[in-house]
């Protein structure tokens, strides 16, 4: 058993409060005491003229903003105590499907914090930012090689902005050829960001069905591919964790009709150094640096969503673009190229999430060609191992795998038999896992699997954690055979118990009342 898991905690199923539960949530605003403060600002060093002499008084604020009045020790204590109310990857197994919760090396934090990176102003003249531009250029090159596509724009802020960029690129590409197709094809297994991005790009979403093997239903695809298709968005391996064997045929069908292929890189961690989206026929790829390339997730960001594109799409990529030329004495010189007349323009300010680039570049240097390939191979090994473990015993009985074949880096189970036979839902199982010290897998996604659980164990977890997880599932199912009520009311040991989400939506309280 994993010694880090509090075994006493999992036996708690009663109403007694834990000390952490007894410690009720109090906000920093409620801790405010008039007259307290933390900061001491430098003196202005100039004449203390009344503000109204500088700015007309009707443009000035009358009442100070209601920020808290607290001392520095209280701030530290408040946020440290809050932090202990989070589950985090550094503390425990986090097999959240499609999120690639891999270890975040502390080295990457250290190099990102070097003042030469962290305190570099984005409008610094390129001649004074050669190190940063070189790093961006080298990251572009590395991602280009990994994706098998010749050009990379680092600009998009995250996967969803990469998707929107990709769709706007498709639009620009078609328009340049005098075409204006109106539809984008998306498999019904796709991430929610795909259809949302399609709408924001002004296209109509057309769903494509999934076949019995978990891949694109070729018959349905053939029926839907026509000249009005701007693009097909695909994740491969898809959200079911299976590799679409028909990818070459899919690509030629879409290309022959004049459409482009977009690759959602959320699942790139399965295939680094094994196969490349460009070689599969994709024209545009986004890469989630906060997944495969180890940028910490930060409780919901920051990330970055660079895109890699083919020659056909390159003229339209966002500006500015980092370029390299020969400088003085044959040394390379790097610059920002704004002169890109066919560019779709900007998606955001300045050059992108550079701090994320530093971390991911450090990660790529640390792993190298051999390490990246090994990471993907190990991720796939771990997923298949955990899938096999969960095919045994009660899990195999109540939580069958959605598609019975080898998976890539993640796999999907269905909790439908568990719900039918034991009376507990996937949600209940997820909540009970919290009492066992695990973050649950992604639940209720993908949508086409009833009571879905999507498990991604990643390469940086040791075998014993995978074993512990499998044993925890087994224990919960065994417990539910005896008393399904335990899981239905779980969790018991977390800082708060199951929360009323419906009530929160009905009467939204989204800020501290005055």
């Amino acid at each position, binding site marked *: 058993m994993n010694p880090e898991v509090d075994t006493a905690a999992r036996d708690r199923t009663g109403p007694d409060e834990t000390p952490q539960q007894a410690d009720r949530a109090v906000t920093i605003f409620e801790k405010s005491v008039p007259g307290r403060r933390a900061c001491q600002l430098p003196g202005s060093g100039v004449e203390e003229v009344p503000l109204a002499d500088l700015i007309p008084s009707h443009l000035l604020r009358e009442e100070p903003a209601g920020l808290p009045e607290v001392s520095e020790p209280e701030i530290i204590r408040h946020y440290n105590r809050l932090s202990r109310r989070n589950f985090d990857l550094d503390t425990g197994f986090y097999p959240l499907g499609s999120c690639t919760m891999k270890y975040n090396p502390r080295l990457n934090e250290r190099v990102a914090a070097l003042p030469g990176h962290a305190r570099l102003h984005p409008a610094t003249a390129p001649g004074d930012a050669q190190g940063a531009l070189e790093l961006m250029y080298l990251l572009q090159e590395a991602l280009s090689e990994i994706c098998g596509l010749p050009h990379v724009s680092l600009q998009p*802020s995250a996967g969803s902005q990469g998707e929107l960029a990709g769709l706007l690129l498709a639009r620009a590409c078609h328009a340049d050829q005098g075409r204006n197709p109106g539809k984008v094809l998306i498999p019904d297994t796709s991430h929610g960001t795909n259809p949302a991005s399609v709408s924001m790009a002004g296209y109509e979403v057309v769903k494509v069905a999934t076949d019995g093997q978990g891949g694109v239903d070729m018959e349905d695809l053939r029926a839907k591919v026509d000249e009005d298709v701007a693009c097909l968005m695909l994740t491969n391996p898809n959200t079911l964790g299976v590799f679409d064997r028909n990818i070459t045929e899919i690509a030629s069908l879409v290309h022959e009709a004049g459409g482009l292929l977009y690759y959602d890189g959320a699942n790139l961690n399965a295939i680094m150094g094994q196969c490349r989206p460009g070689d599969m026929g994709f024209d545009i790829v986004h890469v989630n640096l906060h997944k495969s390339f180890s940028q910490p*997730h930060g409780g919901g960001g*920051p990330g970055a969503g660079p895109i890699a594109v083919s020659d056909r799409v390159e003229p339209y990529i966002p500006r500015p673009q980092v370029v390299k030329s020969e400088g003085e004495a044959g040394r390379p010189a790097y610059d920002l190229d704004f002169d890109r007349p066919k560019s779709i*323009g900007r998606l955001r300010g300045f*050059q992108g999430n550079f701090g994320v680039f530093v971390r991911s570049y450090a990660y790529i240097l640390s792993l190298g060609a051999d390490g990246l390939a090994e990471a993907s191979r190990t991720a796939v090994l771990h997923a298949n*191992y955990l899938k096999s473990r969960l095919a045994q015993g009660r899990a195999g009985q109540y939580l069958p795998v959605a598609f019975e074949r080898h998976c890539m880096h993640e796999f999907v189970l269905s909790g439908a038999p568990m719900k039918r036979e034991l009376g507990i839902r996937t949600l209940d199982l997820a909540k009970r896992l919290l009492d066992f010290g695990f973050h649950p897998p992604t639940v209720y996604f993908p949508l086409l699997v009833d009571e879905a659980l999507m498990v991604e164990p990643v390469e940086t977890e040791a075998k014993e954690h995978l074993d512990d997880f499998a044993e925890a599932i087994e224990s919960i199912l065994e417990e539910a055979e005896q008393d399904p009520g335990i899981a239905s009311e779980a969790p018991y040991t977390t800082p708060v118990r199951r929360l009323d989400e419906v009530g929160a939506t009905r009467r939204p309280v989204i800020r501290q009342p005055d």
Partner: protein
Amino acid sequence: MAGYTPTTPADRDRMLETIGVDSIDELFAQIPEEVRFDRELDLEDGLSEPEVHERLAAMAAANRSTEQAPSFLGAGMYDHYVPAIVDAITQRSEFLTPYTPYQPEVSQGGLQVMFEFQTAMSELTGLPVSNAGLYEGPSAAASAAYLAMAATGRTGLVASRGVHPHSRETLATHAGGFGAGLTEVGLVDGLTDPGELEAAIDEQTAVVFLQNPNFLGSVEDIAALGELASARGALLAVAVDPMTLGVLKPPGECGADIAFGEGQPLGNRLDFGGPSFGFFCAREENIRRMPGRIAGETTDLDGRRGFVLTLQTREQHIRREKATSNICTAQALNALAALVHLSWLGREGFVEMGALLARRTAFARERLSSIEGLEPLHEAPVVREFAMRSAGTPVASLLACPSGTGPSLPVYPLGRDYPEFADSFLVAITEQRSRDDIEWLAAMLEGASA
């Protein structure tokens, strides 16, 4: 062993045995032969930690950071001091390494941070509804356009040229997808031209974009300009620099329907442009059209106070193509940095900061105006940044270092964004730019324009 993987050959063999295959290659057999990658990636092999550190440190050393020399660069991102407690808190594993709080029972820390952040931003902007953050400033403008189009059923976007050029460019990029048209309104004496603005707004205008202070540093009369928008039934969206809201009238008191902006000045380092965060506040009636994550208060089974992601039916993972935005991963850690910085500044310190900026900026503008050949581009009031015009010496030669081989003078030339102001540049002030630094800049400019 590369890749931070703990799996030994013995582990691997036992796993393969459980799976019932002989090799990892068998697991990859599902990838068709014709797309399999048959060589090694053309990258170096993995380096040791000291080697990686050395390589990255060498790159950092090839940059001229604001730690090495005073910088007066601004244009939306500012070299404010980031207090030590910001690093201490944001580097805690419990904030650094979780995912988006999909399991609220074990994410109360992050969710309460969002709730507190929303409260702080609502206080700053004077608008009741805030989300938990967007990517950054300019793309928040695009989110505002998307909201306004849904709220009004109109497709026209009007933006003052005082709005950050990156925001206007980002709006133009997105407008292509949204099916919207963007009209720009010029500036007179550093301020949005009210006559041109009035003429630009019509019955198809969904939203009018203003910025305060505007890109040239001028403090606009938002309330007066905003009336032109509301008179025609358009929403008013105002981009604000959060660090000026200690002294400037909040957009919520100036008739703004949406306040948004670049959050970097609050607790986030420059990082050559990101990651930072965008903020987005609105009035009650648009709460269900908001983009991004929102945390809400609720209770648990036993009646304890708790927090959850709320109003999720707006979001892409539920609503898919009908979502109010496609945003998923955003900038939670950056929003936490802002919240800690704002708590550190506190109610009084935040006002003091604004006043300090305004006084030093006034001093710097006057000091630089005393230099022969330089004059203010406009006479409008300023608060933390201002534009100077060089009548004689071209800006490029003014900014090039005297010897031609050293660093450029760290001020922002306006020519790329405003061809009409190619003879002008911006100077930004923070609490880290002392009077001595301002004198240093003045001396450099005196030398260059002589």
